[in-house]
């Protein structure tokens, strides 16, 4: 009697604690950056260069600033920046700047005819790259010819606030290439955000006597540069803290919680086991390859491939704060349902559609194969396996505890946005993806969550996935999904290897015996991430197998198991 009440009290306390941490996540700083508007500065120099903005870390420089008026876009409209110098920007600034020269006459195209040249430059700071409608357009006569990037590869051009369609515009890229563009009603889309990050100069000549020039530059979050290192600082800090925690735990293990008779944590780095890594294209290898490719694409995909699949909302924790993602992350809409409902039918349909397709086609295969947080945890686990350090094995009771926390997380995930909090400051993904892509994102409570995820993922395989709310939502419709985990109950010897191997602690895989067809019982649950570890560790032919649309894609095989054991290959990936 007393025991249940004690358990209930602990459960309620844990739930409350998590809830409070989630609600006040934005107030618990881990590594906050200065506000972009505070850390940016503007300097105008008359250095004879063509009129253009350039960036050096957070310092913006306007070159060729003779006879130039510099403007900034604020909430109340276009505002002059005196002398073109600013040590920081006011809070109502929208992060877009423009500089316009006094018109002059020149022959810019070498046809012998003098033209009136209106020379201008425009720039968008990094944090404006979200591109909400109108957030970075001046639409003012003081900047007659204006180009605006509206989404990653869509521009619009306006002349005196009127959209230009059917206009011929020349774009000169930073490497000198010239591209002739033809606009349509929507603008055009032959260039992308990546080109703008290097700087593009647009030339518009409506007739042979008028020329408009606009040098457009978007703040670049250059990967693998000094600036990138700045953006990576919080994540590096997280990794360091995690390493310290792990090492402390390994050293103090026996004193902290080890039972009698168990060996203390060991790190057998020095033992002379030959590292035979043979590349064999099995299920496990395919999974690692897909995980790595997804990791790269989800973090740098937008940058690498010019244009991402931004309409598709993958239901993984891939963090939309990374604007260079290969595909959008649906987690944002799940945790900000109020914003979703206000964003228009189009967006809602894409969101629901993506989720439905992903859930029906792949189910939690996305967790096992695609999610970047999953990849990070698998890397931690592999690290521990290679070092042969003792981990923590969970029993049924601990798994039950984790499942309870999962329900709490689900509530927080869906609900905290509705009561004024933000899940993004609680979710660990925000520390990883934007930073790796070069975006300086301030980290609040998420930093601690990420440390917890790395440390727990080291000692217990995929510990975070056990409590991940996004994954659980993805797993709920598993009964109608195309991917299933099935079991032949007669061939199964109830050896429990599948349970030991399962990162999600699903015991029913090995205890279930009854079903409509006992040779093909569906044992997929909403927790199963379809990582295939159970099948890999199963020593009975066909006792466990994974099917996609009814076809077996991975089956347990006794001879394969035995061969791996005999060659010592099961120790490797």
């Amino acid at each position, binding site marked *: 009697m007393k025991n249940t009440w004690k358990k209930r009290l602990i459960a309620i306390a844990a739930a409350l604690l998590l809830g409070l941490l989630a609600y006040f996540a934005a107030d618990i700083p881990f590594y906050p950056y200065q506000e972009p508007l505070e850390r940016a500065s503007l300097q105008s120099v008359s250095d004879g260069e063509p009129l253009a903005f350039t960036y050096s870390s957070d310092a913006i420089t306007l070159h060729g600033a003779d006879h130039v008026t510099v403007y900034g876009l604020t909430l109340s409209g276009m505002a002059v920046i005196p002398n073109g110098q600013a040590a920081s920007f006011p809070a109502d600034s929208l992060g877009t700047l423009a500089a316009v020269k006094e018109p002059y006459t020149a022959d810019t195209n070498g046809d012998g005819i003098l033209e009136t040249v209106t020379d201008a430059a425009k720039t968008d700071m990094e944090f404006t790259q979200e591109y909400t409608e109108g957030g970075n357009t001046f639409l003012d006569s003081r900047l007659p010819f204006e180009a605006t990037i509206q989404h990653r590869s869509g521009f619009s051009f306006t002349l005196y606030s009127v959209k230009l369609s059917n206009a011929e515009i020349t774009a000169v890229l930073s490497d000198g290439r010239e591209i002739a563009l033809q606009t349509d009603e929507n603008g055009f889309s032959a260039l992308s955000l990546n080109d703008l990050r290097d700087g593009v100069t647009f030339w518009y000549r409506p007739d042979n006597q008028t020329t408009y020039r606009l040098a457009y530059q978007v703040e670049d979050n250059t990967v693998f540069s000094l600036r990138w290192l700045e953006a990576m600082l919080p994540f590096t800090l997280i990794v360091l803290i995690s390493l310290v925690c792990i090492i402390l735990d390994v050293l103090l293990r026996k004193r902290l919680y080890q*039972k009698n*008779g*168990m*060996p203390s944590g*060991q790190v*057998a780095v020095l*033992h*002379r*086991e030959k590292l035979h890594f043979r590349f064999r294209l099995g299920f496990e290898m395919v999974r690692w390859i897909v995980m790595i490719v997804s990791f790269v694409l989800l973090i740098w995909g937008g940058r690498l491939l010019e244009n991402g699949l931004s309409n598709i909302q993958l239901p993984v924790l891939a963090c939309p704060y990374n604007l260079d993602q290969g595909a959008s992350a649906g987690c944002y809409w799940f945790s900000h349902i109020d914003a979703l409902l206000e964003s228009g039918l189009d967006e809602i349909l894409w969101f629901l559609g993506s989720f439905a397709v992903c859930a029906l086609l792949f189910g939690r295969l996305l967790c096992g194969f695609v999610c970047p947080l999953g990849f990070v945890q698998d890397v931690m686990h592999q690290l*521990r*396996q290679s070092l*042969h*350090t*003792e*981990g923590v*094995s969970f*029993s*049924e*009771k601990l798994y039950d505890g984790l499942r309870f926390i999962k329900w709490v997380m689900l509530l927080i995930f869906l609900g905290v946005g509705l009561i004024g909090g933000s899940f993004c400051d609680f979710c660990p993904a925000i520390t990883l993806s934007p930073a790796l892509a070069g975006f300086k994102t301030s980290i609040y409570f998420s930093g601690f969550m990420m440390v917890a995820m790395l440390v727990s993922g080291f000692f217990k395989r995929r510990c975070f996935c056990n409590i991940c709310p996004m994954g659980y939502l993805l797993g709920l419709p598993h009964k109608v999904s195309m991917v299933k985990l099935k079991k032949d*109950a*007669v*061939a*199964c*010897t*109830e*050896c*429990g*290897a599948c349970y*030991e*191997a399962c990162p999600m602690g699903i015991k029913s895989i*090995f*205890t279930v*015996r009854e079903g409509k067809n006992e040779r093909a019982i569906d044992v997929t649950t909403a927790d199963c991430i379809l990582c295939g*570890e159970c099948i890999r*560790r*199963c*020593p009975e032919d066909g006792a466990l197998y994974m099917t996609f649309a009814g076809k077996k894609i991975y089956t347990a095989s*006794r*001879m394969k*198991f*035995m*061969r791996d*054991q*005999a060659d*010592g290959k*099961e*120790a490797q990936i």
Partner: protein
Amino acid sequence: MSEKALSISPAQTRQRERFDRKSVAIAEKMLRRVNELTHRPEALTPFLEILRRVFVDREDASRPHGTPTVGTYCVMVPPEIIYAQGAMPVKLCGGSYTAFSIGDDTAPRDACPLVKAVMGFEEIDAMPVYQNCSLMAVPVTCDCKKKLAGYLSQRRPTAILHVPANRDRDEDMERFVEELYAFSGQLANITSKELSYENLSAAYRMMADAQYQLSRFIDLRRKNPLLIRGTFAMAVMNAMSYTYAPDWTKQLAALNDELEALARKKEMAVRENQPRILLTGSPVIFPNFKLPLLIEEMGGLLAADETCMGERGLYDPPAVADHTLDGMMRALSNRATRPCTCPTFADNKRRVYRIRQLIQDYKIQGVVYHVLRGCLVYDYEYAVLEEEMGKIGVPIIRVETDYNEEDVEQLRIRTEAFLELIKYGGGQAK
């Protein structure tokens, strides 16, 4: 060695001589009968040689010089740990009638013959493979094993392992992990070698090689159920008890190669119409090969067996999910408890499934359920098996016997009648 060897009276010497004579005679007779079965593969010879060496020539198990032996009394004692710490396991469950008659004086009348034989070996002190053990490891499974553990611990160093009564709860399996750690500690006292990741994974590798060869063997038999007589397979598995693992692996590899060649040429051991029998129940331990020999001499084929001194002795592999020392220990504990079909567990439904799978794999037409007199746990499960076999239409017969030779004629007629029952249409496996 023991002080007993020094202070031995003439009467005891004569007793020992009689023991030697009788036990050697029985062992030789059994070996001869095994040899006389048709279609004996050449590569079976080394296994029979081992049985001859231990039971006829009465030598100790051969192993690398200086390796102590640990007597084990159950499949539940993991050989991996023993090999890792520099010793060699020998499975000492007794099958000898002569030893059984000696043990009959000490043990209660209704005790199982296996335990009586072990006690007899202890008393007579004439089998080096028993005498030379530095440690005995007895998992406490059934009542008789429990009292055997007590008896042995009075006379020599004994490690007693508590096996959980059931394995549904995680705590049960984990308690056995602790037992294994304790056992490892006791081993270290004998061999002065502590368990480490390196030596345990080396031992794992050694046993994995053995299991790989056994899986090849099983696979060959599954694909060609008539390929080799089950009595030979029993000899192979029984020989494993007294063989250094890598040697056994090599011998089995040679046997597999020979069988593969035979399979390719489609040379089967028996004709298509001979009834395929599954033998299950109490262990069949050399020299008590009465039943397998009877089945095959009477015209059946022992196609498969589900006994712990037979295929089950090395069937389940330890599946390591976590490559650390603790992970490997957990895998061993898992393997010893969860898939184990020993009826000493309270719930043993998995045995029915295993047998059903065997029936399908080897196209079994009849099941012989072997109960040693006094082995209550196996007897309990007969009713369950009978019902299940009834559901799938496979005939099953319960044969109760012990180690003495007096009931051979009665066994013979029952076996013959059962085989005819199958031949004349009573039994079709679904």
